[in-house]
């Protein structure tokens, strides 16, 4: 199903990774591999992980995202988690999920602005 695929789009020096609404465990696991492979192949400086359509963020998904952010950081890239819905944020917090130092943005536009500002040296995080 096309809607249940992870899309990875290159935008200048950044990657836009879009997660489908209800990904299965296998797809979530493949996210990590796809992201790291695309980072290396495109020589990307960072990525936006668009979760604006994601309906359920459970502990398995959250752990995979946190690990991916860490791996991208080890490769010298920055990740911004973008577009988490309000109901998902409420539930994730009550479940006990923490995101550590992961950068977040309200939407993809703001996430791209953040990453562009960082790489131009206008903003330090």
């Amino acid at each position, binding site marked *: 199903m096309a809607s249940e695929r992870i899309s990875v789009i290159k935008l200048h020096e950044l990657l836009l990774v879009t997660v489908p609404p209800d990904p299965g465990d296998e797809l979530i696991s493949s996210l990590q591999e796809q992201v790291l492979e695309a980072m290396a192949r495109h020589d990307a400086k960072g990525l936006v992980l668009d979760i604006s359509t994601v309906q359920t963020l*459970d502990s398995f998904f959250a752990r995979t995202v946190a690990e991916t952010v860490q791996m991208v950081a080890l490769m010298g890239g920055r990740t911004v988690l973008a577009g988490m819905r309000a109901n998902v944020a*409420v539930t994730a917090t009550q479940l006990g999920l923490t995101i550590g130092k992961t950068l977040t943005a309200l939407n993809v536009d703001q996430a791209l602005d953040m990453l562009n500002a960082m790489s131009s040296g206008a903003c330090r995080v």
Partner: protein
Amino acid sequence: MNELYQGEIRITSENEIVIARKVVRDAATALGFGITDVTRIVTTASELTRNIYHYAKSGVVYWREVNHGTDTGLELTFEDQGPGIPDIDKAMEVGFSTGKGMGLGLPGSKRLMDEMTIESKVGIGTTVIVRKWLKK
């Protein structure tokens, strides 16, 4: 009772975690839960269905509408014949896991739902029942 408000999902593979989420989402939405409560219920279903798959390999998730006086709610039962939980108090501690999880599943689900009961016997299996009541 309407067929929609009662049913079961047999869990035998990872794919059924997605199916359980879909079915529980439809049931909770049909009962009239708002989007945030639906998300709480579906997230709980995801955590507890994955527990069945990871620890017992197979099991059954039952869902049904429950009524108490004028209150209406959704009850989910997660049943398996897996290894069982030796120490339920320990399993309810945040961060404790004998598997590869984050140790959030059981304590987190308890916070997301209104009621939770766990029955488990080592070598026999585990039954977790959770309920969420509709706010009036």
